């Protein structure tokens, strides 16, 4: 079992790999510039997905609550940022203030969605979260006076002083990259502190055995509220940043496929392990967003675009591959692709 005190933790045999990965992330824009890959801008959404994966990993991995409607909290953050900054609304606050509000909106929606599930666990809780994930986009589409319905909200404010308004310019992709990387670092830092705190250990105890945890004095209703509010806050942050990066909001960006995608990243990376969530997200989203389109171009250049070009489009196999990966990982490698040290003890 995991030792109770952090000082007693054994050294992680994978630590050199994690350090090398971190160095690669920090140096990537330089390599991109030298090799003229022009991928920095494409990697920003990858990092935002990693933030989402770390946040969802708290609920599903640490707390053992299957959260199927995570996109709802992502939407809450994005719409909070959009409504507070866009010229279409009277507020027009700076993005920094709106981002704080977005974090709050995500946390508030998380805490509210814990209310119906204070006594539920397992499948039933999963279905309620799925329901919340459905109700939120329906509301966003149809509550036109507030959300502008299908039109969505644009433009969302950009970070920094107004003088920097050419942020979306490709030369500023590097700034976006480091902003996203810094936020990912911040989220990971919070997560590590939480994991080793009283709160995080209560979450793990709750996951392992709710009855035993409650006998030890863990307030299991409070744990549910904490878990959903915390992961909601992280999603709210990612929502505000991604809305500003795009910089537009459409209700279709916040539906079940996003929830499903983030859940796949968490499961494939390794439940209950933020490193797995980060590397799983970076690897899989890069494959999906960057490698797959180039493979498609390559395959189509070989065969030429005929009547079968639909079958040569790699993005048309995205969910087939994610689904297969989920099934195979659950069957053969339940600790995920990047299992934590004590994977057997934690998951088995």
């Amino acid at each position, binding site marked *: 079992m995991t030792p109770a005190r952090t000082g007693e933790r054994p050294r992680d045999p994978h630590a050199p790999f994690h350090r090398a990965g971190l160095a690669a992330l920090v140096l990537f824009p330089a390599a991109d510039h030298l090799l003229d890959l022009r991928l920095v801008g494409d990697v920003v959404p990858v990092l935002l997905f990693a933030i989402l994966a770390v946040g969802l990993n708290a609920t*599903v991995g640490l707390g*053992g609550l*299957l959260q*199927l409607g995570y996109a709802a909290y992502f939407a809450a953050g994005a719409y909070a940022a959009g409504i507070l900054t866009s010229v279409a609304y009277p507020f027009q606050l700076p993005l920094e203030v709106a981002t704080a509000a977005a974090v709050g909106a995500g946390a508030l929606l998380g805490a509210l969605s814990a209310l*119906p*599930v204070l006594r*539920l666990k*397992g*499948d*039933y809780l*999963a*279905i*309620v979260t*799925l*329901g*919340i994930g*459905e*109700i939120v986009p*329906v*509301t966003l*589409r*149809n509550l036109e006076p507030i959300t502008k319905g299908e039109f969505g909200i644009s433009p969302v404010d950009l970070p920094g002083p107004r003088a920097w308004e050419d942020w979306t310019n490709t030369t500023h992709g590097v700034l976006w990259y480091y902003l996203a990387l810094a936020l990912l670092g911040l989220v990971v830092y919070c997560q590590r502190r939480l994991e080793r705190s009283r709160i995080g250990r209560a979450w793990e105890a709750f996951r392992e055995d709710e009855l035993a945890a409650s006998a030890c004095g863990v307030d299991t209703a409070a744990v549910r509220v904490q878990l959903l509010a915390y992961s909601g806050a992280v999603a709210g942050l990612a929502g505000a940043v991604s809305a500003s990066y795009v910089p537009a909001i459409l209700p279709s960006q916040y539906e*079940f496929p996003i929830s*499903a995608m983030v*859940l*796949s990243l968490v*499961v494939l990376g390794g*439940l209950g392990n933020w490193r797995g969530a980060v590397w799983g997200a970076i690897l899989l989203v890069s494959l999906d967003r960057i490698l797959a389109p180039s493979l498609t171009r390559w395959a189509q250049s070989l065969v030429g675009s005929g*009547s079968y070009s*639909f*079958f040569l489009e790699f993005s*048309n*196999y*995205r*969910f*087939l591959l*994610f*689904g*297969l*990966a*989920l*099934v195979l990982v*659950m*069957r053969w490698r*339940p600790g995920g692709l990047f299992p934590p040290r004590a994977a057997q003890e934690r*998951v*088995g």
Partner: protein
Amino acid sequence: MSGAEVLAQQLVNGLTLGSVIALVAIGYTMVYGIIGLINFAHGDLYMLGAFAALSLIGVSGLAPGDGAAATWGTLAWVLVLVMAFTGGLNVLIERWAYRPLRRAQPLAPLITAIGVSFILQNLGMLWGALPLEVMGTNAVAPKSFPDLIPRVDLLSRMGLATGVRVTTKDLFVMGLTVPLMLGLHLFVTRTRLGTAMRATSQNREAARMVGIPADRVIAVTFLIGGALAGAGALVRGLFFNTIVFNMGYGAGLQAFTAAVVGGIGSIPGAMLGGLLIGLISALSDHLISARWTPAVLFLILIAVLVFRPRGLLGDPTGQKA
């Protein structure tokens, strides 16, 4: 139309829709009852059933306006083949994806079911790109399903001058779904295998001890649930005349809601829940607005889970909740 007639019309629409929902809901409730799994992939299996039905009708060359004998004869074998396809596929999915996880951690089967759901939905999308005439030119667009069942207004034929329309299409839906449900009820309550199924659902270990081959009974459960989804898919295609590769998700949620409202694990509960959800959808479409209906259904689902998790006819001991 008077207010009463409008209401009566919504009742008719709701019952028709509800009996299709009930067929799909039975698949959820039987699987949940026997292995405690929310089979997330069930809605997508239903979608594949609709694609299989459309392809078979396309291959048979049946078209609207063909004679009654040809239409009914072809539809009968299409029904049998579609039910065999979805039932058999469901058995294979159980065998390869769910059975190895009987002793795994609690979230593993549910996550696997979500993975299977992705796979099936993606297969449906690729199916739509096959070079078949019925699939049209755009792979991901909704497919139009031939309108083979004539729509004759029965009440006006009988000389009743009301604004309410009960058509032969409604009658067709009832005529197919009601016997299937009755047959299932008789099978579960009157046969040896049905008794074994109920025993396995109550306590798998004890059932094994008295000599019931639990794995085979579970396979039969998936076969029946899948076959009923296939029948529902054909009926739905013939009634609404349009299918699309991502319809399984919404249809699955609707049917799952029905199963929970009726009491998950209870077959009569799924039938009752299906009819209720059909009625509520029809009334919500009419009284509020069709675009809010998904949210209304989910609020009902959440309310049932919070206030009465065992549903209307669920296990009174609450063990399945």
